[in-house]
C-alpha cells in the first residue's frame, strides 16, 4: 500500500505543480489584456538594446513594454496575418518592404509620427502611395569579421579576399536569405553590377561559399565559432563589436570597397491591438535619447540627426558618422526586396553546387 500512496503523492505533486503553473500563465495572459506593447525583436544584442530603453517610456506613459525574441519578422507576421500578437517589431528594410507590400503592416502619415522630422528624409521607407512604413531608428554595417588569432585585418583589404582559396574550410557565410539580400547586393555593386543586375556579384559569392565551413544560421552559434577561431572570418554585423559586449578575440574590418549599410525600422503589424499605445511607442523610439541609449549599450548607430554620439561612443565608432556613411553603400531596398525570393533560390543553388 505504501507504494501506491507514495505514487499517488508524487502524482499529486506533479498535478499541483502543473496547476500552479497554469494559474501563473493565465494570470500573465490577463495582464496583457490591459494594454501593453509586445515588441518583436531578434535575440541577443538586439533584444538587449530594446529592453534598455523601456523604463523611461513606461515611467512617462504608464504603458508596459515587453520585448519578445522572434526568429525572424517576416514569417512571424505572415503567419499571424489578420490576428497579430505583436504590437510592434524591429526589422530590416527588406522585411518591412515585403510585409508592407503584402498588406501586413500599418502605414502612417507624417503627422501621426511627428518625430519623423528628425530623420533625414532619404532614410524613410515609403510604400507606392507614399505612406510611411514604420519609423527608421538606427543602422549598423556589414563588414568582414575575423578572429584575431587566425587572421589579420590586412588579410581583408578587399572583399575579394573571401574567395581566396587559402581560406578553404575556414570561413563562415550568412544563411541563404541574408547572403541573397546583403552579400549578393554588395558584391554586385563592387563588381560593377546594380541592385537590378546582380550577375557580377555571383563569382565572389560562389568563392566565399566554396571556402565556408559553417553557416550563420544562428547568431549565437557563429559568435562562438568566431570567438574560438573555428571560423577565421565571416561577413558580419558591426554591432557585434561594440563595447563590453564585443565578441572576444574578434574584430571587424571595412575593406577598401566599403561595406553595406544595414538600416532598421520599427513597424506595426496591421490590425494589432492598442494602436494608440503603438503610436506613442513609435514616437518615443524616434527621439534622440533612446537612440543614444541603444548606441551606447549595443552599437546601433542612431538615425535621429540630433542624436550626436560623443566621448566614448564616438571613440568606439572610430570616425564621425558622416564619414562612416560615405564608406557604406545603401542600395534601393525596394528593388532588393522585389527580387528577394528569386535570389534566395539562386543562392541556395550556388551553395549546393560548390564542392
Amino acid at each position: 500500500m505504501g507504494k501506491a500512496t507514495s505514487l499517488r503523492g508524487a502524482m499529486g505533486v506533479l498535478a499541483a505543480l502543473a496547476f500552479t503553473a497554469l494559474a501563473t500563465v493565465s494570470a500573465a495572459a490577463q495582464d496583457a489584456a490591459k494594454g501593453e506593447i509586445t515588441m518583436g525583436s531578434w535575440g541577443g544584442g538586439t533584444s538587449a538594446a530594446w529592453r534598455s530603453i523601456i523604463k523611461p517610456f513606461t515611467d512617462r506613459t504608464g504603458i508596459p513594454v515587453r520585448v519578445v525574441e522572434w526568429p525572424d519578422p517576416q514569417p512571424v507576421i505572415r503567419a499571424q496575418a489578420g490576428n497579430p500578437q505583436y504590437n510592434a517589431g524591429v526589422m530590416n528594410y527588406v522585411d518591412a518592404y515585403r510585409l508592407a507590400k503584402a498588406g501586413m503592416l500599418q502605414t502612417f502619415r507624417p503627422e501621426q509620427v511627428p518625430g519623423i522630422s528628425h530623420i533625414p528624409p532619404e532614410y524613410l521607407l515609403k510604400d507606392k502611395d507614399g505612406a510611411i512604413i514604420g519609423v527608421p531608428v538606427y543602422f549598423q554595417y556589414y563588414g568582414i569579421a575575423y578572429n584575431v588569432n587566425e587572421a589579420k585585418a590586412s588579410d581583408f583589404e578587399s572583399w575579394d579576399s573571401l574567395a581566396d582559396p587559402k581560406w578553404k574550410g575556414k570561413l563562415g557565410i550568412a544563411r541563404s536569405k541574408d547572403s541573397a539580400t546583403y552579400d549578393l547586393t554588395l558584391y554586385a555593386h563592387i563588381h560593377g553590377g546594380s541592385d537590378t543586375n546582380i550577375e557580377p556579384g555571383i563569382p565572389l559569392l560562389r568563392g566565399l561559399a566554396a571556402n565556408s565551413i559553417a553557416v550563420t544560421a544562428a547568431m549565437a552559434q557563429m559568435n562562438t565559432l568566431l570567438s574560438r577561431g573555428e571560423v577565421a572570418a565571416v561577413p558580419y554585423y558591426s554591432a557585434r563589436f561594440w563595447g563590453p559586449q564585443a565578441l572576444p578575440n574578434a574584430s571587424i574590418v571595412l575593406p577598401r570597397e566599403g561595406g553595406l549599410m544595414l538600416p532598421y525600422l520599427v513597424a506595426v503589424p496591421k490590425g494589432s491591438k492598442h494602436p494608440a499605445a503603438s503610436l506613442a511607442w513609435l514616437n518615443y523610439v524616434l527621439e534622440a535619447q533612446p537612440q543614444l541609449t541603444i548606441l551606447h549599450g549595443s552599437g546601433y548607430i542612431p538615425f535621429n540627426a540630433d542624436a550626436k554620439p560623443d566621448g566614448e561612443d564616438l571613440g568606439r565608432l572610430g570616425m564621425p558618422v558622416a564619414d562612416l556613411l560615405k564608406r557604406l553603400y545603401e542600395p534601393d531596398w525596394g528593388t532588393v526586396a522585389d527580387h528577394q525570393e528569386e535570389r534566395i533560390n539562386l543562392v541556395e543553388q550556388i551553395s549546393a553546387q560548390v564542392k
Partner: protein
Amino acid sequence: MPTGRSLYLALLPAILLLTLLTFGLAKLIAVSFDTGHGIGLASYVGFFARPDYVRMLWRTLLVALATTVICVLIGYPTAWFISRCQAHRSLFLLLVILPWLVSVVVRTYGWIVLLGNKGLINNLLVLMGATQRPIPLMFNLVGVIIGLVHISLPFMILAILAAFRHLDGALAEAAMSLGARPWQSFRRVILPLTMPGVMSGCSLVFLSTTGVIVTPLLLGGLRDGMMGTQIYQEMFIVFSYPKAATMAVLLALCGVLVIVPLQWLERRMSRHSRAAQA
C-alpha cells in the same frame, strides 16, 4: 460497462482529434496541389526542377538509411546483451530509456559541447597526441549522423528487445545441443526469430529520421541540408507555406514508399517465426 450502441459514444473524443488531424493533412495536400489558379502539379514540378532540392531529398533518405543501418548494427548486440543479462538488467534498461526520453534539444546541446573543433573529444585527442589538427566532427554529416543515431538507437534497442522477449531462449540452447555451432544457431534460429523486431525498429527509425530538424540544423554544415531543415527555412525565414507543404507531402510519401514493403516483410516474418515457435 456501457453496452450496445452507447459504447460507440466513447469514440467521440478520439474521432474529434483525428478529424482535426485529417483536416490538417487534407489542407496540406490541397495546398501542395494549388497552383494559384486551379489544381496542378506546378509546385512538384518546381521542386524536381531544382537539382539541389532533388539532391537534398536523396541526402535525407541516405542519412536516414545510414542512421538505420548503424542503429541495427550496434543496437542488435546491445538488445541481445540486455535480454541475456541476469543482474542489473533494469539498470541497463534505464541507461537506454532515459536518454530516449530527454528532450532532443538538450541532447543536441550536449553534442555541440562534445563534437566541436575545440570540443571535449577533439581537445582530448589533441592532448593525447592522437591528432595534431582537430578532426571535424561537427558541421558535417558525421555530426548529424552521430546526433541522429543517438536519438534513434533507443527505439531500435527497445524494438529488438521486444522480439528477444518473445524468443524462447530454450530454442537456441536446443539448437546448440543438437550440434549446431553458435554461429549457425544464431543465423538459423535466433536471427530469423528476432527479425520482426529488427524490421519494426528499422521502419520507426527510418521514418523518424527523415523528419528531423533540430539535429541537422545545429550539427550540420552548409551543404548538409535535409528536407526538415529546408522546411524549417521555408516556414521560418521566407514563410512560403505552399513550398513547405509540397516538401512535407514528398517527405511523407517517401516514408510510405519505404515503409510499406518493410511492414509487409515484417508481417510475413513474424508469421513465420510464430509458426517456427509453435
